[in-house]
């Protein structure tokens, strides 16, 4: 697999292209343009930048107002602050009031590593999934990021796009069909399917190679859109695979795993199932990759989890 750029870089480049074509596009920042890689945008299109300082509630509220008055607004702030401090504004001024603001949560999940819990966003799927009228997209690679940002410009509903910080592996051919709300099946497996999102898709893909060596047939679905969820692709995987493993950079509560689990149960599909996500505990100190490794979100760790899940099923039989 080939390493690409950080998704944040691709976001910033795509936004600059869009901004050049669409003078109504505004980016709203909160002392966050450096971390959002927006230096080039700010230099090239200074008239399309609104800076509000370190004030996330204000940032979301102003973005809603700008949108109400006809602007196409990308509101950019670290995911941790945007979706926690700005949550009531997101709920009322964006989602409830139906303002199609494009909320960009940067350096999401545990991207900030050793900066600790204040800087992690492991709650954002849970809180936003509980709110009516906001779509949630979590791109896994540069291709998904570019397509998401392009689609967001004229997206009719409020949308939250979650981006991490580190360079990511390329996963897709450039001619892959991308649509918000439609998961991408990367590979199919009759033994186990990894249903993953964002930056956990790449380790899942690598895990399938480890499993192939063990004679286990595995597949991966990139669920870039958590809301609306592509139930069809998930149900199809669950009916053609003997087991399901979900993977996400989020709390074990209220994210992709719990969405998939409740979907399968409600449809009466009982397959061996394992959720790989972060336990609700005081977060271990480390870089993003150290934290991933600590919780077994690595190719080896995921392969191990899948193997154990399949073995335990055989024992039960």
């Amino acid at each position, binding site marked *: 697999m080939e390493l690409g750029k950080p998704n944040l870089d691709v976001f910033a480049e795509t936004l600059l292209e869009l901004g050049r074509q669409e003078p109504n596009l505004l980016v709203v920042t909160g002392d966050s343009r450096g971390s959002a890689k927006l230096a080039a945008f700010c230099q090239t299109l200074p008239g399309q930048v609104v800076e509000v300082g*370190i004030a996330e509630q204000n940032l979301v509220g102003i973005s809603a107002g700008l949108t109400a008055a006809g602007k196409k607004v990308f509101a950019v702030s670290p995911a941790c602050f945007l979706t926690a401090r700005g949550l009531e504004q997101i709920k009322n001024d964006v989602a409830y009031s139906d303002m199609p603001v494009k909320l960009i949560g940067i350096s999401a999940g545990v991207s900030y590593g050793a900066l600790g*819990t204040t800087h992690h966003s492991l709650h954002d799927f849970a809180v936003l999934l509980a709110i009516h009228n906001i779509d949630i997209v979590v791109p896994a690679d540069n291709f998904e990021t570019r397509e998401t940002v392009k689609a967001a410009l004229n997206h009719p509903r409020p949308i939250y796009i979650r981006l991490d910080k580190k360079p990511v592996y390329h996963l897709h051919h450039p001619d892959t069909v991308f649509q918000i709300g439609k998961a991408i099946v990367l590979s199919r497996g009759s033994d186990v399917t990894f249903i993953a999102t964002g930056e956990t898709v790449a380790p899942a893909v690598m895990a399938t190679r480890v499993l192939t060596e063990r004679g286990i047939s595995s597949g991966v679905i990139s669920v870039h859109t958590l809301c609306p969820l592509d139930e069809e692709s998930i149900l199809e995987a669950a009916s053609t695979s003997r087991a399901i493993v979900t993977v996400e950079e989020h709390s074990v509560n209220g994210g992709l795993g719990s969405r998939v689990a409740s979907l399968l149960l409600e449809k009466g599909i009982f397959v061996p199932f394992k959720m790989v996500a972060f336990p609700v505990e005081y977060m271990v100190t480390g870089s993003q990759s150290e934290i991933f490794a600590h919780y077994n979100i690595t190719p080896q760790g995921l392969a191990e989890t899948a193997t154990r899940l399949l073995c335990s099923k055989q024992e039960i039989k």
Partner: protein
Amino acid sequence: MMTVAELELKSIQYRKKILSMIKHANAGHTAGSLSCVDILNVLYNQILNISPENFALYQRDRYVQSKGHSVEALYVVLADRGFFAESELDTFEQYQSPFIGHPTRKVPGIEHNTGALGHGLSVAVGMALAGKLDRRLDKVYVLLGDGELDEGSNWEASMSAAHYKLDNLVVIVDRNMLQITGRTEEVNQLEPLEDKFVAFGYAVRHVDGHSIPDLINIFKSVPFENGKPNLILAHTVKGKGVSFMENGTSWHHRVPTDEEFHAAIRELEQAEKKWRERYGAG
């Protein structure tokens, strides 16, 4: 009590340790720690009734560092005050270390977990209010960044502080005129800052945030006015003590290269040498 000269030497040594910590971890908020370390030095060595011995008690002073990103300065000062062994700072931001990149109560001596800006003042108001309710004489100190003042929560907390007449609350603003993107006045205008604080009910004083004797004097004159919360505008230089870091926008969270690190240490050693020439062996 330490002399002013002794404290001045400590400030130089603290700066060296801050830079070493950041270099060793290859991460950290460099300039903001150099901006506030003289304030922390005076507070912990001269003003605060806080020690490893009394830390478990309710009846003592409190210090909340709301600008949590400058945690390096706080860790270095707490180590010097004996809250933990200095060698533990070698684990700063390392895998499984309690010493993360923002204040956390997992570390001895830390009052409150911070890192998201705009929280500390409300918490400090709560602590000061409890002190008033219990008719205690101890004080609560809270350090804010100037960029941090963009957060509206500070102004809600300020109204509470005045409403409850918290003259046992000492708010210190690290007024270095910079935030991440650039100058505070260009990012989001704060001035006229003194007028705003006065209008919110504070007794406001100004101080050179790098002058040890001035800092001692200002803290010793608290409460400035009976029945009013105290606010100190500490005029500081972001990156203070290392010429090429001073007032630069790039040093907010940049780690010095090997070359820059050695140049910075050399400058501080030069300052230490000057101190020795002036005051003798120390």
